[in-house]
């Protein structure tokens, strides 16, 4: 898909995000806005998937696991805009009896979601498991995972990292949303990750870096990652993003990690984001 078209979709996804969280005065806009370009790229350009006929096993399809489940608004919007369910359903986000729970879940059977997430650190293990099953089934489609940078403070991530390298899980592309911010402040101040690229390299992973707001760079990096599939090494992309990207007052701070805009702030945000596909 052309970059211009991807940008138009991402703009609508961003509008959806701020409207969803504002409507219920809760949710996580910061990281959601930061990953809007990435998820748009993934679902509209990179992944082989079937929105019209979702099935849990996903054989012959690329799978995506959102490990940092709190950025559910960006995932729900992307899934809806990609055709998994009607975009009108986004209006039910976080409301009673909705399929669109605060954090993603499978129990209400949202098309496109294969694993609950929210308690951090678990999605890489789940992705590795799915990748192992794809190998057993001789299914050469891929598994993608997304993780927050703060999430890497969870120990299970590094158990999984060790396993994937030792066992040559080379049909998986993990991506880190490296925005440098978490609830309590900058990641460097809360608990520094040190040299992230070197850490993953030391764990035996193929490490790529990309700008999560540059569609051309993402396209090239995904192409490079896919060329490394089957090379007996798991692949991680350290993706630089800006938390709150697209809404000026949410950028450059950790303060909009888990805070919803009020009516006035919402209007301000929507004035900065073009309505391209029609609001839900």
């Amino acid at each position, binding site marked *: 898909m052309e970059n211009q078209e991807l940008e138009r979709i991402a703009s609508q996804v961003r509008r959806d995000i701020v409207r969803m969280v504002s409507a219920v005065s809760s949710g996580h806009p910061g990281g959601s806005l930061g990953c809007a370009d990435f998820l748009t790229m993934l679902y509209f350009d990179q992944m082989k998937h079937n929105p019209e006929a979702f099935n849990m096993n996903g054989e012959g399809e690329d799978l995506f696991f959102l490990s940092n489940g709190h950025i559910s608004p960006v995932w729900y919007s992307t899934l809806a805009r990609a055709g998994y369910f009607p975009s009108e359903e986004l209006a039910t986000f976080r409301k009673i009896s909705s399929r669109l729970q605060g954090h993603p879940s499978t129990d209400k059977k949202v098309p496109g979601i294969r*694993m*609950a997430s929210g308690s951090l650190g678990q999605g890489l293990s789940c992705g590795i498991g799915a990748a192992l099953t794809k190998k057993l089934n001789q299914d050469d489609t891929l598994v993608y995972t997304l993780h927050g940078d703060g999430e890497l403070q969870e120990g299970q991530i590094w158990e999984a990292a060790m396993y994937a390298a030792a066992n040559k899980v080379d049909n998986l592309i993990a991506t880190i949303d490296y925005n440098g911010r978490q609830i309590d402040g900058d990641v460097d101040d809360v608990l520094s990750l040190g040299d992230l690229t070197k850490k993953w390299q030391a764990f035996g992973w193929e490490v790529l870096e990309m700008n999560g707001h540059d569609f051309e760079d993402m396209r090239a990096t995904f192409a490079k990652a896919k060329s490394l599939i089957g090379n007996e090494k798991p692949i991680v992309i350290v993706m630089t993003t800006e938390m709150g990207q697209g809404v000026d007052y949410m950028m450059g701070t950790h303060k909009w990690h888990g805070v919803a805009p009020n009516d006035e702030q919402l209007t301000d945000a929507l004035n900065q984001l073009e309505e391209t596909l029609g609001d839900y």
Partner: protein
Amino acid sequence: MMETIEFEVLGKKDTRSGFGEGLLEIGKQNKDVVALCADLTGSLKMNAFENEFPERFFQAGIAEANMMGMAAGMTIGGKIPFTGTFANFSTGRVYDQIRQSIAYSNKNVKICASHAGLTLGEDGATHQILEDIGMMKMLPNMTVIVPADFNQTKQATMAIAAHNGPVYLRFGRPSVPIFVKPDANFQIGKADVLIEGSDVTIIACGHLVWKSIEAAQELAKKGISAEVINMHTIKPLDTQAVLQSVVKTKCVVTAEEHMINGGLGDSIAQVLTRNHPAPQEYVGVNDTFGESGTPAELMTKYGIDTPDVIAAAERAIQRK
């Protein structure tokens, strides 16, 4: 009048070996069965499966959280993962992983846990988990099974592969008498009435089933007729079997190698209070950690041996 109850013993073996044999057998029958282990392949008796199906065996290393997450992920695409490690590391250590990735996500993972309870023995309280049944039965979607002997553990291992949904299967380390027939038809959620009686109902699971049979034999000599029920499935609970028996005997003893808080006894008490209030006495560990010792010494010291079941039965009858 002195009475005797004969009960045929078919041999003596550890329940974990029943798991190992069952896993190998179901692995032969169902190519979707895969197994994961966290560096305890020998202790879990998973070697035979590993040798027969190396491509379907996954050594996770000492990283149980990742093992549980991988097992959940492996179900996507149709595999039936069996995880194996000690009961403590199968539950308490990874409760949140099980809760979110397996139970809430309703994944078809079989959590197989050995060395449960005090009878792990000399390793002491760090490894003797007595809270696992409670933790697992509280999780929505989770089935909880505690088989009584080698044969039943083998049968249960094979049966859970055919059940779609998360299962916790709990078994142990020591050699214990085998009394379930090798060709018995194990049904999840269907209790076995092992001895019929009229004065007291003894409901037990795991290693306490044999102790309860012994207790019933001793009680018979005193002229007390005890009914013994093997409640191998804690959840879903066979409430009908409980009520049918209690209507007749009018009092209950529950017996388990687990904390009284949160165990089988609590589940039975719920059935009684809601349907048919009756005196109940508990045989279980009373809000304390274990310690090092032989399995026999520990069962005696912590009050989960045959004499404890007998005493509890007599107390329950007196309260009628």
